[in-house]
């Protein structure tokens, strides 16, 4: 108790210095938290993807299409329970800054395959009935203030057509990591429009989505589908939705690595800041530590006082850092939500914060504590006079 009191009093002897140190720890931990959340947000699409869904695309690349005619053949493959298809539309709403994901799908089968998009029955009905209807996620609708019945025009980028839609339904996510900022509409509407201006591009789809009866069948079903189209004009690659998502992410993998590294660099920086504070502190208190030694306090006790003080400072910073991570994340989300449809702080982050902080506190104390331990009393006392 006495030692704890002494540690706390010592920690706040130089209030300004201690507050600056705590401040830098708080900033660093908030940055650390945001960076780590960015990484997991990036992977959230993967986490949300289902193991019972496969995606078939052109073997050459995503930029190439597949004939719609493949659908029936795929449907007949053993283990396939449902097939849907779609194309990435990549339309722009008013201007490029309003980026969001939008694509054309076969609506009935798509909604069957994606039960995590929850839509009120009457809205679903209205969407299926209206070929110019579209569905928006609740987050997207909020972002632009859309309600059902609103008119929305998307300028084509991949396709040379502009499409006018009526918002017929707004979905919410069934799970926490369901993306609530998607926009999708009837593939047939797109195809019809494309037929008028670029007839050779009609009847083509970007990808097929298959539901399978058992996740364990995924490798066999994929292989069977791809075998069917071997040596045809458009060969296919079929993979689980997870690996499909991952292949998107792998493009940015290097960037994610950089973010991961930077997040740990941030920790290294607070280690340096704290170590600096602690060595300044210990240098100033050389005389006092000599007195304690004179009175019979052993080197380890003094090391304990120093490590304790370092931990107190760092852990206060850690607690505040954790407290500020939520507001910081919500600011981040409001600014960049379009790029990170799912931006949730993982509670495990705080365990990582606490562990990293404890490590920082101890490591920062090692050198100063060692110096204080080996300090000769006679030398230390001489410095007071």
């Amino acid at each position, binding site marked *: 108790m006495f030692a704890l009191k002494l540690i706390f009093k010592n920690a706040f002897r130089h209030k300004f210095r201690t507050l600056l140190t705590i401040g830098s720890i708080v900033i660093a931990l908030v940055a650390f938290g945001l960076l780590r959340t960015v990484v997991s947000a990036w992977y959230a699409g993967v986490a949300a993807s289902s193991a019972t869904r496969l995606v078939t695309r052109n073997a050459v690349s995503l930029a190439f299409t597949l004939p719609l005619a493949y659908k029936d053949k795929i449907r007949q493959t053993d283990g396939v329970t449902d097939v849907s298809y779609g194309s990435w539309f990549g339309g722009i709403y008013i201007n490029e800054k309003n980026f969001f994901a939008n694509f054309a799908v076969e609506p009935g089968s798509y909604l069957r395959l994606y039960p995590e998009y929850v839509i009120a029955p009457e809205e679903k009905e209205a969407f299926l009935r209206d070929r110019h209807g579209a569905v928006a996620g609740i987050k997207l609708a909020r972002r632009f203030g859309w309600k059902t019945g609103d008119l929305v025009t998307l300028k084509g980028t991949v396709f040379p057509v502009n499409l006018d839609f009526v918002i017929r339904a707004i979905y919410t996510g069934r799970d926490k990591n369901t993306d609530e900022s998607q926009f999708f509409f009837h593939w047939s509407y797109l195809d019809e429009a494309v037929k008028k201006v670029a007839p050779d591009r009609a009847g083509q789809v970007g990808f097929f989505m298959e539901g399978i009866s058992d996740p364990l069948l995924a490798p066999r079903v994929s292989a069977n589908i791809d075998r069917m189209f071997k040596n045809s004009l458009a060969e296919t690659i079929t993979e689980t939705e997870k690996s499909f998502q991952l292949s998107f992410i792998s493009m940015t993998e290097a960037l994610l690595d950089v973010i991961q590294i930077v997040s740990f660099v941030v920790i290294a920086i607070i280690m340096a800041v704290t170590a600096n504070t602690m060595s300044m502190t210990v240098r100033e208190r050389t005389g006092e530590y000599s007195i304690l030694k004179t*009175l*019979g306090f*052993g080197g380890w006790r003094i090391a304990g006082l120093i490590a304790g003080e370092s931990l107190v400072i760092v852990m206060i910073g850690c607690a505040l850092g954790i407290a500020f991570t939520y507001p910081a994340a919500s600011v981040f989300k409001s600014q960049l939500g379009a790029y990170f449809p799912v931006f949730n702080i993982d509670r495990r982050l705080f365990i990582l914060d606490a562990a990293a902080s404890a490590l920082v506190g101890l490591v920062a104390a090692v050198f100063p504590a060692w110096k204080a331990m080996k300090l000769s009393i006679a030398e230390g006392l001489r410095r007071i*006079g």
Partner: protein
Amino acid sequence: MEPIVRIRGLGKSYWRGNQPVKVLEDITFDIAQGEFLALMGPSGSGKTTLLNLIAGIDRVDSGTVTIGGVDITALSENELTGWRAMNVGFIFQFYNLIPVLTALENVELPLLLTGLSKKERLEHARAVLKLVGLEDRMDHYPGQLSGGQQQRVAIARAVVTDPVILVADEPTGDLDRAAAEDVLTLMENLNGQLGKTIIMVTHDPRAASRAHVLRTLEKGVLT
């Protein structure tokens, strides 16, 4: 009666670069139980060095220092640390109190190394502060006390563990006349009434006159 401090053939040098500088040479003397000894001598003569060696905060190069029957030159660093806590009370020129602790807490500090309970520690510390006349200043921080009062707290801290010897390095060196007299009277009482053995280094002849025995150190030789 067996002397409480027995010093035999004590030698100590410091290294200046790779040149050894002899500070103390072949010092042999005894201090009797209950003695109040003043050690004088010009600056740089080795008084502080000798005191540190007796108190076990520095190491001899040669010779032995036996205190209360224990040859402290034969103790390991850890044993010596533990020995100091139980056997020596220190009084310094600059009081050397811990500034973030109150007078009471400063006096309680050395008792943390004993097996006493919190209650017992506080009882002891209060009693000793009363002894030095500071019962109404217990909750003051060192910064709120005068030099003389701080030195009295330091004396309380030195005696609270009931050590075998008290060592004081120029205890009045930083005090004005009146405060110095108070401190010396207090030390005299500790010696006279409680029978504490005191070894005091001083430059001040008036302080030295309060002691029973006067030794002078000159160029490393005791006379």
